[in-house]
Each structure stands twice: as structure tokens, then as C-alpha cells.
């Protein structure tokens, strides 16, 4: 079995037993990148030299036996909106095309400290705004299961890299579904942790109150390992919570007996693919057969989450993205004659159409006279969404829904229809708005494209999510499937 196809926990055990070196693993993954990257385009930058140096450092620490971390020596893909010291971090935008951060994101620092192997910076929709990774200024990433389909987005590069064995695990970011939706499309595990579980320091902001870093992995055990490695209080992020990090690997129990699982009907929206719906219900039946108590539930406020999100996220983005102005870093228009024209031309030329459109919506929603009708209203909806989840969790331990209403769509198929594009986030946005954790795992296929199952939990209860997902995985074999890419 090729090393690049293995999971992080398998490789970790092999490394600990010295059956393999990190250099061998890293070279295998770099070899796989060499083989398929031309077709997938998962990466913006492949950092082969840094990866090999980290691999050697990892091997040295294994040799010395000095308490290696869970991801020591494991190749990790990093979404290119995570700041990496000395390595270009572009957000797939012209405006940051040559930005080299002088510092590491906290999550990256945690990985670097345990000598995880940074294999490359993965592709995304510009500034994480999009659901298909087609809005990258570099190139679109392809879905490894079907190269004519999108991988989802915005962490499409990270999801594709893991699915195509171009990385063992990956870090992505999720604002309205940007980890879970591509995980679903690419048939990998993706988790948005609770807001405040993982430090956002060094994650280039899209919408601060919604952004969250999280894992994309081949199975649930790897997801637990990555989550364990990046979680915890960080003095550099005010909203990163001071809540103890439990042992997530210990949460991996093949047992759902007595767990109460709710299925909110509003997530089975109009236009949902019946095969997706059927696969999700089949998963619920399986969990029921394993001893879980399952019941239907109704959350009527969910129909307002999409418009609320599409006000809140652009509003915050319009302010967060103001700093990209051509003064201290990044692209500056050559056409500037005075400071104002420098601002205007730099931003006009530096941002893509989707980003500009969201900046426009957000600027408008925050402007005088409209604040109450839009921004404040959306924040009130957010309160109702939060309350609706609180009510649901008074009855259930977790909620199960589809991750997306359909499987991956064709490249270019929806880029002309922004509203339809946004509908792909309809099931993932509610968890974002209420800050709860949610995981996507594969629960079936349609036309050889993966179907995602979303499990949502209570604030800071990633353990129960992992337990349900793990139980499902142990009793199915979806997670063992790999796209045929390059192996036909």
C-alpha cells in the first residue's frame, strides 16, 4: 500500500515503531503531487524543501524519542489563507499575490512545534469567498472523484489534496461551510470546531465572528488527531475560549447506545437531491440500529439563516478587507496619482468580482440608515438561530442533516448563478451562525460522487460528534474508498 494513501494514525503508529521515516512519507506524498497535481490543481504553492527539512527534524525527534506530537512527521496541506512565516500566503488573490508573512498563525506554530510536515499551501476561493474554488485568481481546483466537477469551497484545495492523497491531512477554514462542504464534495472528513475552540490568529480574516480553522482528513480518527493538535486557548486571539481541551482520541468509541439524535426537517430543503436525502436517512437508520434514539425535529427559523448570513459575513468582510490597500504589503496599482486613487485603483484591480461584490453589500449594510434594517436585524436572527439550537439540544445530543443538498456540481455550472451557488451552503450556515461544532463525513455516493452527512453538536462538545462519526465509520466502509485518479 502506498504511503501517501495511508491515514495519519496509521503513519503515526508506523513512525513510532520506526517502520517508516517521515522523509519516506514526505517523499511519497511529494511523488503523488508530482503524479496528479497537474490534473487536480490543489495547491498554490508546494513547499517541498520546507517539507523535507521538517521531515528530517521529525525523524530526528523520533530517533531521540523526545515525546513527538500526534502529527510529528505527517505531511499537512495548509489552506493559503493561513499565515506561514517566510512562505507566500496569497488568499488566492491578486492583492496578496506576493505577501510573505513575518509570522506564523498560531495553529501553524502548533504544528511546526511538533515537526508536522508543511507540504504546501492549498488553493481556495479568493479570500475564502465561494463554494467551488473557482474564484481563485490562480486556477480552479478539480474534484479528484471527477475532474470535470468542482471540489467545493472555499477549502477546495485542502479537500482535494486529502482526497487525492496529495496530503495526509489538511487545515482549512470554515466561515459558512468552507470546510464541511468541500469535505462532502471530495468524500473526506471535515470539521468546523466550536467558535473559540481553535485560535484564529494568523487566519486571514473573512468574517471574524464566523471564521474558524479546522481539519480535513481521510477518517474520523485523523480528524480527532488534528483537532487535538490545534485546539486550545491562545492569548493572541481574544475570542479563543479558555475551555480545557479534552482527549479527543479517547472520545472515539464505537458506541451510540442511548444517544439522542435529532433530524431537523428544515435542512431537507426544497431542491435537495433525493439520493442525498435517502443516503442521510439511511445513515440515521443505521445509527438507530446501533442503539441511538432518533427523532424528527422542526427548526422553523432556519429559513432565515441564509439571508442573515449573507448580510453578516459581507458586513464584517467589508471592514476586515479594508486593510488590503497597497500601503504596507501586497499589490499596489501602478496607476495611482494620489492616495485616494491608490486606494481605489489598488482595490479595484486587486480584488476579484465576487470579493468586490461582497465588500459592496457589506459596506451598504453597515452604512448609515440601513444598519438597523440589515446588520442589526441579521444579528437578531442570529440570536433566534442560537436559541433554536439550544432548544433542540435540550432534546437531542446531536443533530443530523445532509452537508449539502446535492453532490459536487460541474465546473462552471453555477458560476453564473450566485444565488444557486449560495444554496449549496444552506445546510452548513446554521452551525456557523450559532458557533456550534459540526462535522461532515461520507455516507454514500451518487454517480461516483460522495454524499456528505453533517453531524452538529453542542458548544465545545466535539467529543460527541467524533463519537457518532466514529461509530458510523466503524460500521460502514465509505471512508476506505479513494478516487481512482492516477490509478486507473
Amino acid at each position, binding site marked *: 500500500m502506498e504511503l501517501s494513501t495511508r491515514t495519519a494514525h496509521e503513519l503515526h503508529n508506523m513512525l513510532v515503531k520506526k517502520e517508516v521515516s517521515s522523509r519516506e512519507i514526505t517523499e511519497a506524498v511529494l511523488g503523488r503531487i508530482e503524479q496528479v497535481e497537474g490534473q487536480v490543481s490543489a495547491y498554490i504553492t508546494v513547499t517541498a524543501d520546507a517539507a523535507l527539512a521538517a521531515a528530517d527534524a521529525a525523524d530526528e525527534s523520533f530517533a531521540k524519542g523526545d515525546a513527538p506530537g500526534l502529527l510529528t512527521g505527517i505531511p499537512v496541506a495548509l489552506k493559503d489563507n493561513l499565515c506561514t512565516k517566510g512562505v507566500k*500566503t496569497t488568499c488566492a488573490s491578486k492583492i*496578496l499575490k506576493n505577501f510573505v508573512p513575518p509570522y506564523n498563525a498560531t495553529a501553524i506554530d502548533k504544528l511546526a512545534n511538533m515537526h508536522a510536515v508543511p507540504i504546501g499551501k492549498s488553493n481556495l476561493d479568493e479570500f475564502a469567498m465561494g463554494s467551488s474554488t473557482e474564484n481563485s485568481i490562480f486556477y480552479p481546483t478539480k474534484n479528484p472523484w471527477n475532474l470535470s466537477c468542482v471540489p467545493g469551497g472555499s477549502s477546495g484545495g485542502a479537500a482535494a489534496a486529502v482526497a487525492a492523497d496529495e496530503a495526509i491531512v489538511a487545515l482549512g477554514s470554515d466561515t459558512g461551510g468552507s470546510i464541511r462542504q468541500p469535505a462532502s464534495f471530495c468524500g473526506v472528513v471535515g470539521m468546523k470546531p466550536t467558535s473559540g475552540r481553535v485560535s484564529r490568529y494568523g487566519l486571514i480574516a473573512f*468574517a471574524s465572528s464566523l471564521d474558524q480553522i479546522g481539519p480535513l482528513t481521510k477518517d474520523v480518527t485523523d480528524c480527532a488527531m488534528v483537532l487535538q493538535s490545534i485546539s486550545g486557548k491562545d492569548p493572541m486571539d481574544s475570542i479563543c475560549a479558555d475551555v480545557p481541551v479534552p482527549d479527543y482520541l479517547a472520545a472515539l468509541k464505537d458506541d451510540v447506545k442511548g444517544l439522542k439524535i435529532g433530524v431537523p426537517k428544515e435542512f431537507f430543503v426544497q431542491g435537495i437531491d433525493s439520493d442525498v436525502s435517502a443516503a442521510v436517512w439511511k445513515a440515521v437508520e443505521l445509527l438507530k440500529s446501533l442503539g441511538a434514539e432518533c427523532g424528527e425535529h422542526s427548526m422553523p427559523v432556519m429559513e432565515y439563516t441564509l439571508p442573515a448570513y449573507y448580510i453578516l459575513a459581507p458586513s464584517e468582510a467589508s471592514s476586515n478587507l*479594508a*486593510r488590503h490597500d497597497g500601503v504596507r504589503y501586497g499589490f499596489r496599482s501602478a496607476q495611482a496619482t494620489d492616495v485616494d486613487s491608490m486606494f481605489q485603483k489598488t482595490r479595484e484591480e486587486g480584488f476579484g468580482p465576487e470579493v468586490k461584490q461582497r465588500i459592496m453589500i457589506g459596506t451598504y449594510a453597515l452604512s448609515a440608515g440601513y444598519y438597523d434594517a440589515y446588520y442589526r436585524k441579521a444579528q437578531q436572527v442570529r440570536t433566534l438561530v442560537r436559541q433554536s439550537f439550544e432548544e433542540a439540544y435540550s432534546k437531542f445530543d446531536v443533530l443530523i442533516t445532509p452537508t449539502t443538498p446535492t453532490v459536487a456540481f460541474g465546473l462552471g455550472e453555477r458560476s453564473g448563478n450566485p444565488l444557486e451557488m449560495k444554496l449549496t451552503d444552506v445546510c452548513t450556515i446554521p452551525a456557523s451562525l450559532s458557533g456550534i461544532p459540526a462535522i461532515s463525513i461520507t455516507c454514500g455516493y451518487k454517480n461516483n460522487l460522495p454524499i456528505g452527512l453533517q453531524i452538529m453538536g453542542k458548544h465545545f462538545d466535539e467529543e460527541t460528534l467524533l463519537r457518532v462519526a466514529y461509530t458510523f465509520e466503524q460500521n460502514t466502509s465509505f471512508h476506505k474508498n479513494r478516487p481512482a485518479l492516477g490509478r486507473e
Partner: protein
Amino acid sequence: MTEYEPVIGIEVHAELLTNSKMFCSCPVEFGGEPNTRTCPVCLGLPGSLPVPNRRAIEFVIRASLALNCEVKEYSDFYRKNYFYPDLPKNYQISQYDNPIGRNGWIDITVDGTVKRIGIRRVHIEEDAGKLIHASVGNESLVDYNRGGLALMEIVTEADIRSAEEAREYLVNLRAILTYIGVTNGKMEEGTLRCEPNISVRPKGTEKFGTKTELKNLNSFRAVYRGVEYEVKRQVEALQSGGRIIQETRRWDDDRGITIAMRTKEMEQEYRYFPDPDLVPMNFSAGLIEEQRSLLPELPQARKERFMKEFDLSAADAEMLTSTRAMADYYEEAVGAYPDYKGISNWIMGDFTRMLNSAGIEIDASKVKPVDLAGLLKMIADNVISGKMAKTVFEEMFNTGASPKEIVKSRGMVQVSSETELYPIIDQVISENPRIVQDFLGGKEKSFGFLVGQIMKYTQGRGNPQAVNQLLRKRLSETKG
């Protein structure tokens, strides 16, 4: 002709005396090479995040309490969005709906009348960087060392009615802020910045006129002159049938005029919203009381106590309590030697003049309060004359030596004993027989000449009273 009355509100920005910046750990220092005190946070680099400085918040609570403001439990941070190259994130973290302090006041005295000036709000924000407009070439330079410093904004109600009141408000405010130790309050260095909003309206009417905002007022004097000029300009404009444009005007201290600044109207739309990167603050009653307990005696109370305890005039007491350092200095000096009036006169006279020309504050002076007291005691004890004291003080100011040391090393002790003075007196009498005769003949003026001669021989060290007394005695003996 219609009589107009000015309506003035003042915004003050004070840099807080914290060790580190408001939202990052870069040190707060003045001067230094450009862009050497920055980090990803205060440079606003992508991905960086703010974490608020606890001491800065405590300072603003303390200042709010000193300004008689309400401090509510709940407070939070907002973003003020506008583009400017000295503002790294193109938004400023500030406060909006829930400032730390609100509805306060301070009392000022103008022409002997006490007037209460309302304080609308006191809030925390971050400072911007510094822009340098290059004299040659088509560019500006940006230094972010100052960017992100903790800045407190204090906004009055539109209660101020004259340039004198504006200055008096600022003098009082600065005294309070420096007393409580939250800012060094140096207008010249820009650590205390004053921006008045000025409008005028026909006397007796209620409706506010169109206001202008004044910038670049770097001293109390500039505040007075700038406000006075702007009020006059507005009144003259209206009287001659013109109108006032809402704008920001820059005070030109050299030319003594205000000039309109070309700023863009649309900048007024700041799109405030709660900063999602920062969590709310919730001040416990315990925290607020703790900050209240840290407040020292404030200038007004201290002034009143000085008048009572040290029998000083209102003007002297106000002057002596205008800074905490000066008041502390005075109290320490009179503690060592209770010549209340004498020490007051010295501090406000020669001492202040010398401090001003050296450009330092009293607490940076080499003269210890106990030594100033010692000097006064030496005059009273006739060890030195008042004239000698001036020379001694100059040396105290320059070297920090005690008056005793100086007098001793310079041999400046006053000569007043008979054993030292009689030989000199006798010599002068024998050298000037004609003049002695004139005196004995009733010419009183000749006495003065003889005293002068004696002072010359003693190199000015003769104790005038002793010289007078002994010379008269000798002359009467001569006569006899």
C-alpha cells in the same frame, strides 16, 4: 447689529501612560527610528488580532471617575471605518454606544464665577501612525511607531461659551488627568490634543449654528487664540451676510489665523459596528471601587485645602496645584519649613522662570523640596541675604547641591558678628574722616555711603541690619 454667542464643545485625545500599546505588546516610547516599534498587530498585517491592554482600560475607568462620570458595568469595542494611510487596518478600534464613562462634569472658575462643564463621554481607542508630508517629490512617508498607542477621548457637552472658558476647561482637565497619572498631558508633544467644535448663534436663540472643528492647537495659549479667532471669524462672516461651512480648520499659530483643510465630506460615514474580534467588558462594582480608591486628591479639592491650610490666595493656590508634581513639591517643602508664603513666592517666581527656560517640569528639577525650604530658612536666620539667596539658588538649580554646601564652599556666609564687622567699620571710618564729619554734622545721606563702603569690603556678605546697627554705634562713640 445682531449679537452672537459662541457655542463650543471640546474633544480631547490623551495618550495613556501604559508600557505597551493598546492591542499589542509593542513598547510605548517616544522618538526613535521610524517603524521600529511595530508588530503584525499594530501594522494591521493580515491575520493579526487585537487583545486589549488591561491597564489602559483601568486608566480610562479612573479618569471617568475623576471626571464625575457614570461608569456602567457594560462596555464594548466598535470599529470606526475610514480609509487613511496612517490607519493600518483602515478602521480604528474605538467605542460607540457603550463608552466606559458618560454624563460627567468638571467645574471651572472664570472671572471668579464657578461654571460646570458637562462631560458627554470618555472612551478608549487606538492612535494612528504618523504621516510626514515630504517637502520634495510627490509622496508622503508613514511611520507606524505611534500606531496603536492607547488613546483616551474625552468629549464635553456644548457648554463652553468663550475662549477663556475653553482654555480654563483644558487647564483643569489637564490638571486632573496628570494628577491621576494616566497621561503626561504634553500638548506641545501631542500627547494631549485638543479639538474644539465651534459655532455661533444669535444671543438668546436656542438653535445651534453650523460648526467648524479646529485642529493643531498645541498649547493653552493656542487654544485661547484659536477659539477667539474662530469665533470672531464666524461672527464677522455672519454679520457681513456670509455663511459658515461645516469643515475642519487648522490653526496657524505663526500667522494667528485658522485655515480650512481640504477634507472629504464623505468621510463622515464611519459605519460603526461592534468589533467581532473583541469580547465585551463587564466591570464589577469591586473593580470600579478599586479604581476609585486609587484616585488621589484632585486639583480642585487640593486648591481649597491649600487656601485653608496654608493661608494662600485663590490665585496662588490654583497655580501651585496646577500640576500634581508642583503641589506635591510645595507640600514637601512647607513640611520641612513652614514659610507658606515665602516658599510659594519662590516656586512661582524665579524657580518657575528657570524651569520654563530649561523646558522641564518641577519634578525633573535637581532642586530638592527640602533644600528650597533650607534656603528660605537660611534667609530667615540671617545666614544669607535675599540677594545672595538668588545666587545660591541658581547654583542649586544647576548642580543640585544643597544651599548649605554652596554657601560653605563659596564662603558666602553672611558676616554679622561684631568681631568680624568692627575692624572693617573702623577701617572705613578712618579712611573717610570728611564723610564721618559730614554725618556727625547732621548729613544723614553720608551714612549710606559708609554702609556701601563696608559692604564693599565684606564683598556684599555683611548682614545689612548688623552693619547698620554697629556703624551707628561706632559713629556715636566717635562723636562722644
